[in-house]
């Protein structure tokens, strides 16, 4: 047994995240934790298991699967869920396409990033979820910096940024009408470096694509995109081999890697601290479509 003599930023962030997770579990009827196999959702799921230990999670995990995955991430996802011995729901964009709910994009710039929103909202309705935990952080993006911890969504899954519920102190108004839901963000006040430091402190394992490895890539808009069967390349986009790692993990059609030799958490931390480019700026093609790309997608029900 040890006595606390000093409190670190991570201790405070961890305590805050657990408070939010417990609060949502207690107040909402049917929460679900959105789990992509990305580092933020891994940290989130880890925090959730700590919040209720030694009992199990009072809610399932859900992966919105675009079908355009990095195989290492899916492998990790299934391993992780087995490891914590919890239930995983997979909501499939492929199925939404097969059912005619959405139309797959075609051509070299095709992405299923936008299509995920329909699949997610359908799954929320099907399972009657009234709260979705997400690993989003305020330091990621301008629109996210404006979002509440308990972020209200109407029956259409829409976020109304001009009319958010005031959220003073750490008191959350968790009242909903039928059909509405919350997106709940326990990592709101964490930074990218905090996430890595916490992964280090807790000894969490991550999908291998977060660390330097050789991969077939091609250059698009100044970013290194993974060469995959489902990505159509333009004539001038030649494939070559590069040592890369991924800073974020999303749909493989819009997530870029970066040149790196960082093979451990410690080395990634060194690079992250020295980096002059933000996480999303470095790796997300989907934010670059317009100035308010994230706000517009969030208004429509995106993560």
């Amino acid at each position, binding site marked *: 047994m040890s006595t*606390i003599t000093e409190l670190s930023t991570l201790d405070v962030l961890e305590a805050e995240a657990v408070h939010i997770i417990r609060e949502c579990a*207690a107040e909402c009827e049917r929460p679900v934790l959105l789990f992509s196999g990305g580092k933020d959702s891994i940290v989130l799921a880890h925090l959730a298991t700590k919040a209720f230990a030694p009992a199990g999670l009072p809610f399932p995990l859900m992966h919105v699967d675009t079908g355009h995955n990095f195989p290492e991430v899916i492998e990790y996802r299934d391993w992780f869920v087995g490891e914590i011995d919890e239930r995983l729901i997979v909501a499939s964009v492929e199925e939404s396409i097969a059912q005619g709910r959405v139309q797959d994009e075609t051509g070299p710039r095709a992405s299923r990033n936008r299509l995920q929103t329909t699949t997610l909202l359908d799954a929320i309705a099907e399972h009657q979820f009234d709260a979705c935990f997400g690993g989003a952080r305020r330091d990621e993006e301008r629109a996210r910096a404006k979002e509440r911890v308990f972020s209200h969504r109407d029956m259409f899954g829409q976020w109304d940024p001009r009319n958010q*519920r*005031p*959220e003073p102190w750490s008191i959350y108004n968790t009242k909903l009408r039928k059909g509405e839901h919350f997106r709940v963000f326990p990592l709101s006040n964490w930074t990218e470096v905090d996430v890595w430091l916490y992964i280090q402190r807790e000894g969490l394992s991550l999908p291998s694509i977060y660390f330097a490895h050789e991969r077939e890539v091609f250059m698009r808009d100044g970013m290194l995109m993974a060469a995959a069967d489902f990505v159509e390349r333009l004539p001038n986009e030649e494939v070559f081999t590069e040592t890369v790692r991924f800073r974020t993990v999303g749909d493989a059609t819009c997530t870029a890697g970066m040149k790196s030799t960082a093979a451990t958490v410690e080395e990634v931390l060194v690079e992250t601290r020295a980096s002059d480019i933000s996480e999303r700026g470095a790796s997300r093609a989907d934010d670059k479509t317009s100035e*308010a790309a994230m706000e517009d997608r969030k208004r429509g029900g995106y993560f």
Partner: protein
Amino acid sequence: MPVESPMLHAVAVGSVDDGKSTLIGRLLYETGHLNADEIAHVEEASRKRGRKGLDLALLTDGLRAEREQGITIDVAYRSFDAQGRRILLGDAPGHEQYTRNMVTAAAGADVAILLVDAKNGLTDQTRRHLAICGMLGVSDVVACVNKIDLVEYDQARFAELADELVAASMAIDGPRITPIPLSALEGVNITERSEATAWYDGPTVLDVLHDLDRKVAEEEFRMPVQWVIRHDEGGADVRGLAGRITSGTVEVGDEVVALPSGRTSRISRIDVLGDERPSASAPLSVTLHLEDDVDVSRGDVIAPVGNAPAVASRITATIAWLDEAPLTAPARLEARQGNRLVPVIIEELHERLDLAAMEQVPTDALEVNDLGIATMLSAQPLAVEVYGDNREMGSMVLVDPGSNRTVGAVMVREVIRD
């Protein structure tokens, strides 16, 4: 043992165009928390709007409507490090019509950064924000006399405004003021002192944020129970009381009482997220075990025997009204306090703070953005304390049960014993 808080909640307030967003941009930039792609984004967005140079406000004004109108509508939160201490900074809207969002940002803040235009001086909105900070218990204000470059770095003008700010706060028994001459645009006295204000030998904004004395866990121990974790331990049904310690320190062996029931027991085990410890302090999330199997559930408050909060149904409180529809008494609402949601009746409205005259005036209604004093009755007794004594036990949020909207922020002034 109280320890220095590793994290500080700060809020930037002040009138429109006094330069809040520019200061935040500067702070992030000078502390190395602004990335090249973010700067490139601001450059492009500034150009698109025909601004000369970098409009750093575009960094935090992230919403479409904010950029279109050039104003801040809602709070943006950014994190940065002040020489090893984490600062979570809220950029609050300056417009009067968005005061409710300013209240959201300032509630729970340890320190406010208040900007005043060196040329224009104090405005009604400056005094209003100062008063709101005072009511919300923000005990320290870094008063930045901004745009000091536009008055030729005039020491006399700075001294004049510094005196006015201190006097304005004294008049309302408000926060402690640390005045700093500043140019957010030129980066003067934000993270480094400047030759331009050689006559100034006080701290920079970053110095104040780094040095501010803010201990955690100084007050009496309190923990509202969030969740009861039940599990089987060698055939025994074990119940752990999960929650976040909102103030103070608890030790194994401490005699505690659960409120409002009043049942007592001793702490037998403290589990800090998988780590068993002899003691734990605010703001940690923990699971407490009691020696006796007493009936404790979500919403109950665990406190030391002999130093527990009062249990009462009637209070007087300051209400910051946040809803477009005015509040008139009597009103039936719901209050969320600690982890409880209880029906309440606002029985009587007494006074309203007239922010123009800065005085309390009698009233029978609170309009949106008003601050007033009211008497409130709750359907069940609550473990409450005066806000000034314990923020967590003395704050509530009012919810309209019809619309589910968050309509008010409550700070307890007086607990009326049953």
